[in-house]
């Protein structure tokens, strides 16, 4: 197992190297550049040159790349052209926000999707099954940004039940944030008002972001459960005289969860993409809105650091999924 994990971590090195190069090249191949984005169209040639010189953008691309990689190896992600703050610092600000949002979305998807898919399979072709099929089709085909706007309009603007934007009430922005995860911060500092406020702010974005994974997880759970209920070992469990809740949980659901876990891992990558839209609609100060902003300003350092970090997270999460798979499924042993 350890050997397997070490090997998988080792594989990440070439993946990240190739990706960093492609990313670096593509960003610079894009028309426009940070200087013109910052100074505007009426900037003079001279102004542009000065700015490019200051950020080393006038040097040959390969020199810039090696310089960037040298700094990266030391943990230096460079400085944002737009805000002049170190990318690392901004990343540490933004990352917890996106993680909080993503965890919220995954929780919505799993806590609703697994029971729903299971219930649909148990009453195959019944009312729950049919309506969950329709609902998940809608869930998959509904554009995230539109759903986000709709949720915001109905529940925040019209009904006023939940806040419209941000991560926490503005009056509490000064609250202590030792971890950057606002819910966790609320617990750590025992600031329950902040906790409640952060939780309320999280609800709508988490639902908006969780809808597509929810639809997918519902379908996968349903399919996997349908496969498992007709397995011989389920009949064995019934013949043993076990209570049906034990048969459902221990014998059916446990086996049906195997494909679901894989899907959850794959969803994480999609989730981060979805986060860009959701964060924009809800002004959520996370990685998504940060990167969107960076694209507009051709903020090379932010884009490189942010996207590489995205990739790193996705790869690590999938490694975690594979490891957890070995614990769930005894037939799998990694060497």
């Amino acid at each position: 197992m350890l050997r397997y994990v070490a090997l998988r971590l080792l594989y990440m090195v070439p993946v990240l190297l190739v990706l960093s190069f492609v990313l670096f090249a593509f960003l610079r191949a894009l028309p426009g550049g940070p200087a013109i984005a910052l100074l505007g169209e009426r900037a003079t040639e001279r102004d542009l040159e000065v700015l490019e010189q200051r950020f080393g953008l006038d040097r040959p691309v390969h020199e810039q790349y090696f310089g960037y990689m040298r700094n990266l190896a030391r943990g230096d992600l460079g400085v944002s052209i737009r805000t002049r703050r170190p990318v690392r610092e901004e990343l540490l600000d933004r990352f917890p926000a996106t993680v909080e949002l993503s965890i919220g979305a995954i929780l919505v998807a799993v806590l609703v999707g697994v029971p729903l898919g299971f219930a649909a399979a148990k009453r195959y072709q019944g009312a729950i099954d049919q309506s969950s099929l329709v609902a998940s089709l809608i869930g998959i085909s509904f554009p995230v940004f539109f759903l986000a706007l709709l949720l915001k309009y109905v529940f925040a603007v019209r009904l006023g039940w939940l806040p419209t934007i941000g991560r926490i009430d503005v009056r509490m922005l000064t609250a202590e944030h030792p971890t950057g995860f606002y819910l966790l911060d609320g617990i750590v500092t025992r600031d329950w008002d902040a906790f409640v406020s952060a939780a309320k702010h999280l609800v709508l974005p988490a639902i908006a972001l969780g809808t597509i994974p929810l639809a997918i997880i519902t379908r996968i759970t349903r399919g996997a459960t349908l496969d498992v209920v007709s397995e011989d070992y389920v009949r064995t469990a019934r013949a043993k005289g076990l209570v049906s809740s034990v048969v459902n949980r221990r014998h059916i659901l446990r086996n049906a969860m195997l494909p679901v876990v894989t899907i959850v891992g794959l969803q994480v990558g999609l989730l981060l993409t979805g986060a860009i839209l959701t964060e924009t609609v809800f002004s959520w100060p996370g990685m998504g809105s940060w990167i969107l902003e960076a694209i507009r300003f051709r903020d090379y350092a932010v884009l490189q650091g942010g996207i590489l970090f995205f990739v790193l997270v996705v790869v690590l999460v999938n490694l975690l999924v594979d490891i957890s798979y070995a614990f769930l499924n005894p037939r799998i042993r990694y060497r």
Partner: protein
Amino acid sequence: MTSPGSAAATDRTALLSVRDLEVRFVTRRATIHAVNGISFDLDPGATLGIVGESGCGKSVSSLAMLGILPQPAGRVKAGQVLLDGRDLVGLSEHDLRQVRGGEIAMIFQDPMTSLNPVLTIGRQITEALRAHLDMDKRAAAEEAVALLDRVGIPDARRRLSDYPHQFSGGMRQRVMIAMAISCRPKVLIADEPTTALDVTIQAQILDLLRTLVDSEGMALILITHDLGVVAGVCERTHVMYAGRFVETGPTTELFARPKHPYTLGLLKSVPRLDERHHRRLEPIGGAPRDMRELPTGCAFAPRCTYATQASWEVLPLLEPTAGGDHRVACHNPVPDAELVAAGLGLGPDADGDAEDDDQWRP
């Protein structure tokens, strides 16, 4: 043990008494008449073989007895399943749970798929113990070790924490047997327990079943398509076709003088070791009945060389033959001359004791 037949056959209560059991599978497209009125009695410690081709309703009967027919299509349409005089049909789910595994336990065909792959076998044995005998964790684990020991699994204590995929097929079937006998059931139903196993392993598993039935005093219902399996284990044999018993009787008698053309066909299609000349195995022509509608006459008529007009029109009922306890549901039972030609019946061994059945064993 009394013979099957009408509902009023017994004047005393058998351990398990099935009366005119009918099972249907109802789907939107069709109704499958899986079991069409079977009756039999089983005394404590008795061994009964139920033999028939795939799809004749033998497994479905046993699932129906335990109330675990595949849902939502499967249902018991009529009949009774009396265990110690209590009817299991229509019993509440709560009461049925006590019966399943507790009083009637079951072993299934394929040990490769009948054990849950993600739970240790220790867990799978102890969960049955704890459901029925109210044992604590440690006591259940100890009992599981003893059970695995008894079914011949070496190093039982260590293997408790192993998963099914770490066992061979034969060992898995031993685990299934350990699980089934764990709560000391009165009746053990073994549904094709050896079909998925190698021939050498088959013999071992049958030996084990025989030993356990003797030592535990359980009654055994052995369901199989293989006459050879029944021959070595069961005192009585019921031959099933299209959801009905077509011939019933003491195993020795039934093998020596099969009266139903279908039983004869089954016997002819079993390879025998004691024959001097190589004989071509004779398969039974045709295919099992389409069970979507019930025939008016004998269900076997389309495949039967003895069929007459009556076979097509009148349903034959189980009637005693000259052999007394031997019954057959046939308008034109196989003549004795035919049996001699097939190397069966009237030979010197015909009315010998059970040892003679060994010729059929795998």
